[in-house]
C-alpha cells in the first residue's frame, strides 16, 4: 500500500483527481444543474455507505437503523444554524458537534445490543431507527423542539472562509452556482471519509473487526476487547453518518422526519451489499449506482413510453420503483457477492459454495 505507488498508479490517481475536479462542469454542461445536484447526493450517499460499511462490512454487525445517525447529524445542524431557535452557529462548530452527537448515539445504541447478533441485532437497530424518527415527528409539543412533521426550514447554508456556499459566486470568470460549490465541499469530505475508512481497514482495529466478524469467541481468545471494538465500530460508523447528515441539512436548507425513514436505511444497506460488502471501492460504486440509476430511470421511462406506446402506460414514478425493486432481486440472484467484492469476501463465498456443492 505504501511503497507500491509506482508511476502507473500515480498517473491513474492524478487522472481520477482531475476527472473528479472537472466533473460538475462536464455534468452541468451536458445535463444541467439538476444533475450536478444528483451527483452531490451521490457523494453524500458515498459517505453514508462508507460509514455503514464500517459497522456491517468490517465488523459484521447488521444495522438496519443507520439512518438515525444521519438524522441526528442533520437535526443538530438544523437546530443550531437556523431561525428555528435563532441560533446561527458556524458549520465548523455544528457539523463536528453533529458528528459527535451521532457517535454518542452510536455508543448509546451499541451498549445495550452488545450481546445480540444477526437478525436480533438487525431488528433492534431497526427499532432504534424508528424510535428516533417517531421522536422527531412528535417533539413539537408541548415544547417545540423539532417542529414535528413540518420539519425545519431556512437552514443556513455553509460559509467557508467568508464565502457563502448558498449563493452563486464568480471565480476567474467562471460562474459557480451553489450545487458546484457544495460538490467540492462534499468531495473533500468524501475523500476524508474514504481515507479514514481505508486506513481503518488496514489497521490493527480493522483486523480486529475482521476477527470479530469471523468468530467472536476466537477473537476474544486472541485478546481483542470485544466490547470496545464493537462500540468503536458503531461510533465511527455513526460519525460518518453524522457528518453526512449535517452536510445534507445545509445543502437542502430543510429537514423533516420524512427523509429519515426505514427505507433510507435499507437503501444504504442495499448500496453496500450490491456494491460489494467490506470493499471500499465496491461500496462507493454501489452508492453511486444506486443514487444515479433511479434518477436515470426517472428521465428515461416517461419519454420511452411515449415513443414506443404513444401514451403513458405506467406512471414513471411507479415504473421507476418497480424496475428498481426487480433489479435489486435480480442482482442478488445473479451476483450475491456484489459488483466489486473484496478478496476476502470472494474467498468466503467460494468456500460457502464449495461446501454447499459437497453437501449437495
Amino acid at each position: 500500500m505504501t511503497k507500491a505507488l509506482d508511476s502507473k498508479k500515480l498517473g491513474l490517481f492524478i487522472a481520477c483527481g482531475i476527472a473528479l475536479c472537472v466533473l460538475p462542469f462536464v455534468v452541468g454542461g451536458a445535463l444541467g444543474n439538476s444533475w450536478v445536484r444528483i451527483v452531490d447526493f451521490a457523494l453524500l450517499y458515498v459517505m453514508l455507505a462508507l460509514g455503514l460499511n464500517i459497522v456491517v462490512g468490517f465488523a459484521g454487525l447488521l444495522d438496519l437503523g443507520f439512518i438515525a445517525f444521519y438524522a441526528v447529524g442533520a437535526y443538530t445542524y438544523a437546530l443550531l444554524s437556523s431561525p428555528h431557535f435563532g441560533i446561527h452557529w458556524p458549520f465548523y462548530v455544528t457539523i463536528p458537534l453533529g458528528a459527535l452527537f451521532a457517535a454518542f448515539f452510536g455508543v448509546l445504541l451499541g451498549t445495550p445490543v452488545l450481546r445480540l447478533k444477526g437478525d436480533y441485532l438487525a431488528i433492534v437497530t431497526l427499532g432504534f431507527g424508528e424510535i428516533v424518527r417517531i421522536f422527531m415527528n412528535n417533539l413539537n409539543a408541548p415544547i417545540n423542539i423539532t417542529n414535528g412533521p413540518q420539519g425545519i426550514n431556512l437552514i443556513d447554508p455553509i460559509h467557508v472562509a467568508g464565502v457563502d456556499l448558498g449563493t452563486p459566486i464568480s471565480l476567474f470568470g467562471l460562474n459557480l452556482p451553489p450545487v458546484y460549490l457544495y460538490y467540492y465541499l462534499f468531495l473533500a469530505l468524501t475523500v476524508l471519509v474514504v481515507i479514514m475508512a481505508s486506513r481503518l481497514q488496514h489497521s490493527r482495529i480493522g483486523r480486529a473487526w475482521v476477527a470479530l466478524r469471523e468468530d467472536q469467541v476466537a477473537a476474544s481468545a486472541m485478546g481483542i476487547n470485544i466490547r470496545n471494538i464493537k462500540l468503536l465500530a458503531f461510533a465511527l460508523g455513526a460519525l460518518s453518518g453524522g457528518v453526512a447528515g449535517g452536510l445534507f441539512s445545509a445543502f437542502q436548507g430543510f429537514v423533516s422526519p420524512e427523509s429519515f425513514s426505514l427505507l433510507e436505511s435499507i437503501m444504504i444497506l442495499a448500496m453496500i451489499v450490491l456494491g460489494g460488502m467490506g470493499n471500499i471501492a465496491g461500496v462507493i460504486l454501489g452508492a453511486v449506482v444506486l443514487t444515479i440509476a433511479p434518477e436515470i430511470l426517472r428521465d428515461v421511462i416517461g419519454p420511452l413510453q411515449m415513443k414506443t406506446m404513444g401514451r403513458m402506460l405506467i406512471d414513471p414514478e411507479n415504473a421507476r420503483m418497480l424496475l428498481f425493486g426487480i433489479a435489486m432481486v435480480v442482482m442478488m440472484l445473479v451476483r450475491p457477492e456484489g459488483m466489486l467484492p473484496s478478496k476476502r469476501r470472494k474467498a468466503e463465498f467460494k468456500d460457502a459454495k464449495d461446501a454447499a456443492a459437497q453437501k449437495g
Partner: protein
Amino acid sequence: MDIFIQQILNGLVLGSIYALIALGYTMVYGIMGLINFAHGEVVMFGAMVCITVVSMLTHSGVDLPGWAIVLIGTLVAIPACALLGFVIERVAYRPLRGAQRLAPLITAIGLSITLQQVAILIWGRNYIPFPDLLNSDTVSIMGASITKLQVMIVVLCVVLMAGLLVMVEKTKLGRAMRATSQNPTVAGLMGVNVNTIISATFMLGSGLGAIAGVMVATNYSQAHYYMGFMIGLKAFTAAVLGGIGNLGGAVAGGILLGIIESLGAGYIGQLTGGFLGSNYQDIFAFMVLILVLIFRPSGLLGEKMADRA
C-alpha cells in the same frame, strides 16, 4: 377503570391480528432461518384482493348477506396469497438457499418494493374503503364496548392459531415441518421432501397472512398499498418478542405486544404528565422489543439463542 378494560380489549383485537401475521414470520424463520421481509406485502395483497372481490360482488348486485360476501372475498384472498407466497419463495429465496445471510434479506426487500409498486399499478395510491357490509353493533363487557366484528376477529384468530398448532404437532405435514426446521439435511435423508415442505410453509403462512389482511381491512374499514409495512414490522417484532421460530411464542408475543401498545397509548399522557401523547403509540413496540432483547435475548419463550449469526 373503564379505560383500562377498553384498552385491554382493543389490545386483544390488535394483538391477535399481530399474532396471526407473526406466525407467518416465525414459521418461515423456524424452517429456513431467514426473515421473510415481504410477508407484510402478502398481508396487504390479502386485504386488497378481498376488497376487490367484495366490491365486485356488491356491484354485481348479488343477493347475499354481508358476511357471506366478505367470506367469499376471504376465500379468494387465501389461495391468491398462498400462491404469492409460493412464488416469493421460488423466485427470491430458493435460489439463494445456503448463500450468505444478507443476500436473501436484500432480495426480500427488493421483492417488498416490487410488490408495493405492483399494488400501486393495480389498485392505485389512494386508500381503498372496505364496503360497509359487516354488522358493527357493539357489545359491552364490564363497561367497555367492543364491536361484534372485533369479537369475531379474536375468536377466529384463536381458532386458526389452535388449528395451526394442532396441525404442526399432530399431522404428518407438521412432523415433516418440525423435522425440516431441526435439520433439513437429515430430514431429507429420512424421506421428507424438503422443498415441498418449505413451499408448504410459505403457503400456509401466506394464507394466514391473507386472513389477517382481511381482518385489518375490516377493522379499520380501509386498505392501502403501504399498509403491509408497519403491520409487518410490528408482527415481526411480536415474533421476536415471543422468541422467533417458536409458534407459541409468536402468539404470546403478538397478543402481548397488542395489549402493551394500546395500554401504552391510553396511559402515556397521564404517565408523562401530558408531555408525550398517544401519537407515540408506535414507540412502545420497539421499546419493549429492545428491553426484552437486552434482558432476554432469545425472546420470552425462545430456546437458548443458537449461534446463527
